[in-house]
């Protein structure tokens, strides 16, 4: 843990610098959204609805709004409706005043879902989070290809560059998370666990960047990851694991009947807890940050703005810590569940 903390400290320092450099952009972006929402008819009578701004920020979207006056990226829409597969730019769904308009029968409903003639469709659009997902994946591939290249280059020598930066993290995941929790056959699961850990870690860090999408704070993303762990846990689960669930050994018969439903519920609470934990931790962090930023717009005071800036910086630092901790916890629990289902139990 101490290794991990000292690493996250280093990363924090790097990111403080980054945040400091980008904070005007961050504020500009959010301010832009605020203005944008102020003009929207859904905004409250006071002209500013903080909860709407915040929720809008943490949700997925078909457009990527970075700043006003040309800072909006209109992402491609891919839908599968009764008409068949359709691909077009999300630009067509908005007019020049950023009002929702209909295009070829497609329209955004009040929740931001695409509907075709009033019916829901299978939406495979490259949304903001899908774009984030692609960026995250590309970054991971680039970084770890470079790391792997380092091992080829420095064969038999000390690590250097990005390789020596990432090596302690990889070794940490292997020795502190995967090995102690999975046990003997840990090497089989190590690639999955490393991918999981770094996907979440990088996703968390990228999500903290100003203007970035809330990838790892999206319940669809965390659910998918949790389901993968759930599938591995139950597919790889051995006889002892299932025996423990259906006919708990060493327990009197009447108790076994009570334990059975509890154990069956337990199978499903594990992925649910994984899903909710990561989603809530990251989304809550974003909501807290945005709430503090919104204070300045609610009170329209320089002093509140100054105060909230300090608080935002402070919370940002905590969020950096949370980014590492949540990646650690998700991987830790995944390892624990797989380790529990594959462990060879001693029979009592």
């Amino acid at each position, binding site marked *: 843990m101490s290794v991990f903390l000292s690493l996250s400290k280093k990363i924090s320092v790097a990111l403080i610098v980054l945040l400091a450099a980008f904070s005007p952009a961050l504020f500009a972006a959010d301010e832009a959204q605020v203005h944008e929402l102020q003009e929207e008819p859904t905004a409250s009578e006071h002209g500013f609805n903080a909860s709407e701004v915040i*929720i809008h920020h*943490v*949700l*997925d979207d078909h457009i990527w709004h970075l700043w006003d006056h040309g800072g909006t990226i209109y992402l491609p829409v891919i839908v599968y409706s009764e008409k068949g597969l359709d691909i077009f730019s999300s630009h067509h769904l908005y007019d020049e005043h950023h009002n929702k308009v209909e295009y070829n029968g497609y329209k955004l409903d009040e*929740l*931001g879902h695409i509907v075709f003639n009033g019916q829901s469709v*299978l*939406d*495979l*659009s490259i*949304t903001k*989070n*899908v774009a984030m*997902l*692609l960026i995250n*994946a590309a970054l*991971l*591939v680039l970084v*770890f*290809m470079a*790391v*792997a290249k380092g*091992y*080829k280059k420095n*064969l*038999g020598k000390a690590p250097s560059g990005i390789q020596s930066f990432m*090596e302690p993290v*990889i*070794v940490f995941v*292997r020795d502190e998370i995967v090995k102690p929790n999975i046990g003997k056959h840990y*090497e089989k699961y*190590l*690639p*999955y666990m*490393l*991918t999981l850990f770094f*996907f979440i870690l990088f996703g968390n860090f990228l999500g903290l960047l100003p203007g970035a999408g809330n990838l790892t704070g*999206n*319940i*669809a*993303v965390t*659910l*998918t*990851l949790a389901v*993968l762990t759930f599938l591995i846990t139950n597919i790889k689960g051995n006889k002892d694991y299932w025996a423990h669930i259906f006919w708990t050994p060493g327990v009197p018969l009447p108790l076994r009947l009570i334990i059975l439903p509890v154990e069956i519920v337990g199978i499903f609470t594990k992925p649910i807890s994984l899903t909710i934990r990561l989603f809530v931790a990251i*989304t809550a962090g974003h909501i807290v940050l945005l709430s503090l930023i919104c204070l300045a717009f609610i009170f329209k005071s320089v002093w509140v703005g100054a105060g909230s800036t300090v608080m935002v910086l402070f919370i940002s630092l905590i969020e950096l810590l949370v980014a590492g901790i949540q990646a650690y916890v998700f991987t830790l629990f995944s390892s624990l569940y797989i380790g529990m289902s594959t462990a060879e139990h001693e029979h009592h």
Partner: protein
Amino acid sequence: MELLTPGTGLIIWQLIIFVLLFLLLSKLAWKPILSSLKEREKSIQDALDTAENTRAEIAKLKADNANLLREARDERDKMLRDAREAGNRLKEEAQIAAKKSADKIIEDARAAINIEKQAAMKDIRIQVSNFSLEIAEKLLKKNLSDDSSQKALVDSYLKDLKIN
């Protein structure tokens, strides 16, 4: 709530991209990285083991050397002692032999001296008897130079004879 409902599209994208990412990273990154790490750890462990073994071996060699040195020293001492003893014995034997031969020489010399002495005594006895005869002759010659003295002598003898 919109926030809590997972979007189908994002689930599909997440599944596809994550699985692809997993496959890609497993092959291109994790496999070489983990095998290199393992190899490096193994080589470090081997180096440490070798160092430990070498240290033990050196200690053993040192002990062996000390043993050898002690044995050599003991052997040297023993050889010196033996040599000293042998020397002493030789010296004693030589002394005894020398004494023996000296005694023999003395004995021989004494015997020779005795023989010489006997011979000399014999010689002297002959000489002395010769001298005595010469002196007696000379005396006789002088005393019996005239007839009267001869006559006197014969008379004395005759006198003696008569007694008998």
